[in-house]
């Protein structure tokens, strides 16, 4: 009972710590928006073809763009708090609606990537540490080194060449075969087939990272005193590894999974634009070409908030996994 109320307090405290960071990011967002050439009225006037200076001034007054900067900042802050991220003139839709629409494909891609990368990373790192300095360890280490140095977009393109164009196992792009009108399980299967290549591509880099970390973490734990104690009381190596060392070695890997979420979002922009996966990354790529800044800033803001939330969740998991950690 004591512990659960402590955890609740801890969560509340971390939430409060996150607020100034989000506030700072919103302010950075606002200044970036002002740094860009032209404002929303210029864009509107451009879309309309032509507009008189009087009409443009009138529009600026209507949007509050003639106010001094601090006033505009307050209005912007108020809008963000009300979840109003502005209007995308290209898509003719509020940015927030557009983002919610495209959020689920990205979430699907990221969750499957994290499961694959963390799962296999732990497995490979464990294997390398158990077979230290054998050929298995060497192969895993070299694999991790190479994938760590490979640009994601290139891996994606090479996957398409090999598995889609030459072997024909997987589709080259998209999330589902819209023309086929699949329903129920057929649709799930269709999406799963489309998901394979983007997931493998996005997870490779993180797989390398987690493998290296898991290996180092296992080796560090093997050197601890409790392992000597366990050996002295006659436990089998198997039991020492799987019951004692593994549990302790997992902790830093879990933390790292949280820290890397920001990079994962950046990676998804690249992977989604390679595979035309209809998520937030693809949306960001499209908005780049349409020069749709409102939309780009909205995606940026959402991904920053996502990073903070995921880190909070990881902290909570961490405190549950390791009772030694004081949540106060």
């Amino acid at each position, binding site marked *: 009972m004591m512990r659960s109320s402590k955890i609740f307090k801890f969560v509340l405290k971390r939430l409060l710590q996150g607020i*100034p*960071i989000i506030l*700072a*990011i919103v302010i*950075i967002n606002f200044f*970036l928006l002002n*740094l*860009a*050439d032209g404002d929303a009225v210029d864009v509107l006037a451009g879309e309309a073809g032509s507009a008189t200076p009087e009409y443009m001034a009138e529009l600026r007054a209507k949007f509050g763009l003639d106010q001094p900067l601090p006033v505009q900042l307050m209005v912007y802050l108020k809008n963000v708090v009300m979840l109003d991220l502005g209007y995308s003139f290209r898509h003719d839709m509020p940015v927030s609606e557009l983002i919610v629409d495209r959020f689920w494909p990205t979430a699907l891609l990221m969750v499957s990537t994290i499961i694959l990368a963390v799962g296999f990373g732990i497995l490979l790192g464990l294997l390398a540490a158990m077979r230290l300095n054998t050929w298995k360890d060497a192969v895993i280490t070299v694999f991790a*080194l*190479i994938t*760590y*140095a*490979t*640009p*994601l*977009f*290139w891996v994606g*393109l*090479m996957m*398409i*060449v090999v598995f889609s*164009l030459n072997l024909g196992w997987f589709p080259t792009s998209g999330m589902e075969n819209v023309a086929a009108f699949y329903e129920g399980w057929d649709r799930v299967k269709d999406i799963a087939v489309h998901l394979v290549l983007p997931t493998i591509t996005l997870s490779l880099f993180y797989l390398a990272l987690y493998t290296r970390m898991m290996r*180092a973490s296992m*080796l560090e734990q093997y050197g601890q005193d409790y392992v000597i104690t366990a050996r002295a009381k006659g436990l089998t190596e198997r039991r020492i590894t799987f019951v004692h060392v593994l549990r302790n070695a997992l902790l830093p890997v879990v933390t790292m999974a949280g820290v890397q979420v*920001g*990079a994962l*979002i*950046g*990676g998804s*922009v*690249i992977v989604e*634009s*390679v595979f035309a996966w209809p998520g937030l990354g693809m949306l*960001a*790529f499209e908005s*780049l*070409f349409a*020069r749709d*800044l409102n939309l*780009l*800033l909205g*995606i*940026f803001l959402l*991904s*920053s908030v996502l*990073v*903070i939330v995921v*880190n909070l969740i990881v902290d909570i998991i961490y405190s549950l996994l390791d009772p030694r950690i004081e949540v106060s």
Partner: protein
Amino acid sequence: MRDFWNRYKRNRSAVFGLVVIFLVILMAATADLLYAFDPFRLAGKPLSSPGTNGFLLGSDSLGRDVAAGIVHGAKTSLLIGLVATLVAVFIGILFGALAGYYGGQIDNILMRVTEVFQTIPSFIFAILLVAILKPSIYSVVIAISVVSWPGVARLVRGEFLSLKNREFVQACHTLGMSDLRIMLREILPNCLSPIIVIGSLMIATAILIESGLSFLGLGDPNIMSWGFQIGAGRTMLRSAWWVCTFPGVAILITVLAINLVGEGLNDALNPRLRERN
């Protein structure tokens, strides 16, 4: 120095990395001799496969020579990687040194700022910066440095925190040295090794970020780069696999070599760290 080299060469893969980097630098330096023409120029029949029509690595859909692009792109990647890292290391040292040396409120504020920049997803932030500043070699360098300095700041702060109360620093205070002089001439030289290691690894990351940006079409439109080549070749993937493949191999080899050198430097500069593993 000799001692350092002896420790460095014990790591064979680090020596291999150094040789590869040397070759890439050589390639970049002699680019104008090897292919003494503009890499954007139409050099022959479009979509020639490697080894045909006088193209070593083939040509792309506009008849540009892929090999010439790779050789000229090496200049871009190395230059941007190096300059962006230098700028990032400079900002990081500035923040980290002030925060670590003065502590208290200054430390608090500077570290809060660092935390914000560390939370922001870096690649999306870089995209945003380049998009707003308009794609050019300067905006790419600015964007990469802005997203990569927080790591250096944290490292330098930690080093300054642990060094500032040492006896030699106290002696400097007694001698009446100015704070600036103590920071630059006394403490900073003592934490150069970890800065060099993190800096060398940052060059690799910077090259990867640059290639990603120019792949998305955010590179300088007048300068050839590996990411641009891959981005331009992706629509021709079915008919001309070589346009995307070879520049990617160039990125992979360069980044791998820099990472190997970084690890080698780490082993050679921090021998005690190595013995623990």
